[in-house]
């Protein structure tokens, strides 16, 4: 009996001691679901940074759908008639656009998130032990090009509201809002910095690029993309001569007036692999996305009486007529025939039209007409403009940009604003409005109540 009680006591003691010992070791449980930023910010190796460079491309791709769809709606290229989300009509076509409203973010958060990613790379790249000096330069040049692209993307959306250029390392420190003009200057300088870096980047990048960069995946080739993007920026701010200079160093080519020739460029690619993204603009039924009805009817006629090839190859009259909130369309865009079709970042057709635009700006009508004709005859099958065409070349150029670049980047809206032609965009109903620019999102405004940026206002549209 005594022994039994002893044993009981000992067992209890043992249990208690075990429990205490187990529990006395604190458990430092790791993050099982994701790597942590400490892996990148500590002492990263080349592999980590290379993977993060791919993250910059992924980040840029995350914005691509927004440009074509939201800006496409503003610029009356397409409409989103999703019955489940009527705000695509009520907010984006009727408005007013409000800082806290639907669609106002317009890529803002994503652009700056991508900039944060890029700045983090720039902060650590010099400390990566297994990069050569040239490879470091390559990383910087590539990343800076995409950073400048993000700034340019937001300038297209916010225009005179300006933006924030600095992204301080400490996220609680806020960068200052600067004007559109200052932002243009800094963005142009960043493109140039990137070019300098790329020039010192040796023969190859240390990282792998997607198939969307085929032909442009070495520093020497990629610098031509950098120049093309810079040319877009210079055209936006009307510095025509600088635009021509940049275009001359870009991948502009008029050797082949073929589909392939026009399509040469860099792209965002998609795949159905797990973890990857599919093309967000793909809507075959369609369930939501339709072209504005006038897209086909306003296309110019070819000699045989049929419409501009650029219209008929990019949209068709479908069997489904989508209708919501009093508007409807049965014109289905076919720009993206599959869910893995690439979306262009920049391609040759745009470069040629940029050159035409710069030449119009400089008064070089002949050069401009030559470029416009190259595009409209080859891509559109339209009759050429006469060499002595005396009409408004801007109208002609905007027509070509509308049909050449349909549903790719929201160009029509930006172009209409640049030439004060927003009034020419057709409203489906009298209650609809055309907005010149997009307010700064409310999350940004709320953090700057002491000195609200001027973009923290409703935009009523006209």
């Amino acid at each position, binding site marked *: 009996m005594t022994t039994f009680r002893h044993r009981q006591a000992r067992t*209890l003691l043992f249990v208690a001691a075990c429990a205490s010992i187990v529990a006395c070791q604190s458990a430092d449980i790791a993050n099982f679901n994701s790597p942590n930023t400490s892996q990148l910010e500590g002492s990263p190796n080349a592999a*980590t940074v290379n993977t993060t460079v791919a993250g910059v491309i992924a980040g840029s791709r995350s914005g691509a759908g927004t440009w074509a769809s939201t800006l496409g709606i503003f610029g009356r290229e397409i409409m989103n008639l999703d*019955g*489940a989300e009527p705000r695509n009509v009520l907010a984006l076509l009727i408005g007013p656009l409000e800082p806290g409203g639907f669609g106002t973010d317009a890529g803002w958060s994503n652009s*700056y998130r991508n900039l944060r990613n890029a700045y983090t790379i720039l902060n650590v790249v010099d400390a990566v032990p297994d990069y050569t000096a040239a490879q470091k330069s390559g990383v910087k040049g590539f990343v800076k090009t995409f950073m400048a692209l993000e700034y340019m993307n937001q300038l297209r959306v916010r225009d005179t509201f300006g933006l924030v250029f600095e992204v301080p390392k400490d996220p609680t420190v806020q960068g200052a809002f600067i004007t559109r003009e200052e932002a243009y200057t800094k963005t142009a300088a960043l493109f140039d910095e990137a070019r300098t870096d790329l020039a010192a980047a040796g023969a190859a990048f240390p990282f792998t690029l997607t198939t969307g960069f085929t032909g442009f995946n070495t520093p020497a080739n990629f610098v031509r993309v950098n120049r093309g993007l810079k040319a877009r920026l210079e055209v936006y701010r009307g510095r025509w001569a600088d635009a021509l200079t940049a275009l001359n160093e870009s991948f502009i080519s008029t050797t082949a007036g073929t589909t392939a020739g026009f399509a040469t460029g860099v792209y965002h690619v998609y795949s159905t692999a797990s973890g990857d993204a599919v093309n967000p603009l793909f809507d075959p039924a369609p369930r939501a996305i339709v072209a504005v009805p006038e897209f086909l009817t306003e296309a110019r006629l070819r000699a045989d009486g049929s419409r501009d090839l650029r219209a008929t190859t990019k949209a068709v009259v479908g069997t489904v007529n989508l209708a919501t909130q009093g508007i409807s369309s049965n014109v289905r865009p076919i720009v993206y025939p599959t869910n893995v079709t690439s979306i262009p970042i920049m391609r040759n057709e745009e470069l040629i039209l940029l050159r035409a635009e710069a030449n119009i700006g400089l008064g070089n009508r002949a050069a401009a007409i030559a470029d416009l004709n190259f595009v409209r005859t080859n891509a559109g099958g339209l009759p050429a403009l006469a060499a002595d065409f005396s009409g408004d070349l801007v109208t002609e150029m905007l027509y070509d940009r509308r049909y050449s670049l349909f549903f790719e980047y929201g160009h029509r809206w930006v172009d209409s604003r640049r030439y004060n032609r927003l009034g020419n965009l057709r409203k489906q109903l009298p209650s609809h409005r055309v907005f010149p620019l997009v307010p700064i999102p409310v999350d940004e405004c709320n*953090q700057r109540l002491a000195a609200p940026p001027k973009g923290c206002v409703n935009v009523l549209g006209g």
Partner: protein
Amino acid sequence: MTGVFARGGLLAAALALLAAPLAAQTRTISGKVLEEGSRAPIAAAQLQVTGTALGALSRDDGSFTLVNVPAREVILMVRRLGYPMTRITVGVSQSSLEIVLKKDVLNLDQVVVTGQATGISRRNLANDVATVSGADVNKVSSQSIENAFQGKIAGAQISQSTGAPGGGNRIRIRGISSILGSAQPLYVIDGVIVSDVSIGSGTNKVTRAAGTGISVGNQENPVNRIADLNPNDIENVDILKGSAAAAIYGSKASGGVIIITTKRGQAGKPKFSLRLGGGTSELAYRNGSRKFNSVADAVTVFGASITPFYDANRVLDYESLAYGNTPMNSDVSLNVSGGSEDTKYFMSISRRNEEGIVENTFARKTSARINLDQRISKRLNLQVGNEILNNANDRGLFGNDNAGNSIAYTLTKIPSFLDLRRRPDGTWPVNQFYPSNPLQTIDQFKNGENVWRNITTSRLTADLLASDKNTLQFIAYGGVDLLNQSNLIYSPPTLQYEPVDGLPGTAANSKSTNIQRNMNLNLVHGWTPQSSLKITSQLGTQFEQRSLNQTRASAQNLLGGLEVVTSGTVRDVDESRLEVEDFGVFAQTEMLWRDKLLFTAGARADRSSNNGDVEKFYLFPKAATSYRFTDLAPGLVDEAKVRLAYGETGNQPLYGQKFTNLDLSSVGGLGAFRVGSVRASSDLRPERQREIEAGLDLNVFRNRGTFAVTGFRRNISDLLITRTLAPTSGFNSETSNGAEMQVTGAEVSINAFPIQTPTWGWNARLNWGTSRSKVTNLPVAPFLLGTLQTGAVRIEQGKSATQIYGNDTLPQAGGRVVVPVLMGDGNPLWSAGLSNEVRFKSVSLYALLDQQKGGMLANGTWRHYDLGQNSRDYEELDALGRKLGEVRRTNYLQVTRIFYQNASYVKLREVTLTWDIPQKWVAKTWSGASGAKLSLSGRNLYWWTKFRGGDPEAQNFGAGGVPDAIQRNRELAAYPASRSYWLNFSLDF
């Protein structure tokens, strides 16, 4: 530290065991235990000679025998559930006695948990602890135990996120307690923490309600898994509402603690109890829809292509077509209890089968439990419990959606003249005007969920020391809650919406495992230095580990239409893991003087792997006192108690909140890292609540009623906030501790038994609770959770944490301007429950009314009827001659309150008519039977509300990033609520 103490204490205890007292002269006492009035024998009453280990249980006929009783005057302690604890002095020469116990209708002597392993009788309790008995829980068959709590607990708001079979609720006790952390209470069954996890189903892959991921839990109206429990096994439930009562549970207790005690066996021959229930349910609310009076009207909305489908004479009621299923529900349980004095058992099996008002939806719950109590030796007692559960359901396709396929969502877009019914040849018409045909979706979509769960609890009690003045007990609890959930979503290629993305057919297969283990060791010391003073102290440790692993695979473009994900050409996988380990040490002492003055003080120190500093212990102290006045005004106020309590609890950061992720993705086959959008703060620590609670309890009119009033104030500091960062920082938000909030409230409960005669009986209960929150310190600028256009919670210093802002349009010189305005508050002003039970002889009628006053809710379903230009009053004209629906539809983005409404309601929650079949009839039919009851009951039979669009309780999810802890401020296309009716028969034998 604890190890050392435990060792010392145990050694002392072991020594004490050795020094067993020598037997002196002894005698035998025998007698009977009877109930006052009826003089019915009371079985299983526990008798104990105080100061000794001598004890016995009364037999079925109430008789008992105590042997080896010391031959001196002794005090006999008699305990029996449902009766007050009684002490009887037995004289030296007395050898037989009759013990008469009075039924404790007011539950004053019920022991309420105040420590991990200790309790105190309600008479002395210093906190307001609500108790719901098993009988109250089972008044009307419910989907989940929380439904059975509705209207029964002062200060608890319980809302149902969906009307779908299988449950899905949210409990908020004493208002809001957190902005970002968990707000759900902690559930403890028989001393062991169990899981109330909600795991998403994977319907997001089909509805795309939030992105394209496989599962986004909060959009999928998941079942919170406490719904798995079998209510029939519950003996009673204690609800520790505030920090003052719950402090002993430390950093997991900020949402309150719900302590469930299951039924245990009673010695004697086996006693069986059988319950048979059958019932049905029906749609409780109809939205109605527009009648299109002309083809021109239809063309305006749907375009010219609607013309051939228009038929002025066809008016279909789609709500009846979709929600018109008449289910056959059943709820059957059988339990048995019995055993010897050393071994007692309770076993139960049950099955509840509930079908939905939507065809092909159901919830089937099967469970089996065994509770075993074994006395190992005189000083060693073991109690174990094991429950195995299987819960299967299909809840259809409901809730928010961005792909045009959610059933309730789609119904809002279908004009009543459009015929989408199945054709005689079995084919389904294509809905040309919306991506899906909801009737086809109901018929073909599968949302299968199957849960297997095993909950094991154990309790080991060792009486290490039992002398006249000192007792020392070692009490260990241990348990495992293992939960396996599998979900199979199958959306066949034949469904109309499926080919829309070019990938016909979607399947998503998910497996989730949640394991929760804990162990809890206590030493409880009782010291009675003199008969008027009793001091109970305890010291203990608690160790808990929980993990949740979810793996999901989905596939689109299902070749051959197979359900298996490998048949799809586009596949996606997802895995997430969670693991947490907590350790706590606690100590408390409770001093009771003359059974009048109670004083308690204690503290708990907690450490968790979720904190930034995993080594650090956070201390949560508590203190409470109460005093009973026993002879104030006999007959009027029989007894009064004043009480004051203070306590602190915490709320842990969630797993992963302390890390800034480097998000993984893939771009064109390349692996990619992106700096995550949520920045973590590395020094995350638990939120801390400091609550002070004061109250007054009265027993009045010769114990015919109790009245309790409680006021509390809670200051919450170190609130976790996901403060929104300026997006230009590159982050959306940052999680950190910082804000402070104050919650003030009051609760009243009244319990009355005005009439208690053999012929008539009446009892009434009323509970009422209110709470208000105020953000007292916000280190960051005020911020919005959600968007103004659809209503946002604005967190602002000095204001309620649940204030809701929206847009409004104000006239201004030269036009109108859209400005943000305060629309109201999401938190109700107060909530109340009133129940009455009237008995005439053997027939009794019971009814429970549940009321909520105030609170705002966005009515999304109604909004979608308007947006589809399909609401029932769309064409009615307002004073200015404009169409009502047109005005709402075109203005709601600028005038948010159009679809934001007051959610006040009164619900007739439960009604039961019971007939206690007289014993003589029962015995005549079958001599083995000891009692039988027949009852007719109903749940949610009727409600009164001005809220339009559905059930004002149905809050599916927080719109636009409003965290669950604050509010689920939107009702949108949830599975509709239903009324249910039951017929029950129960038999005891």
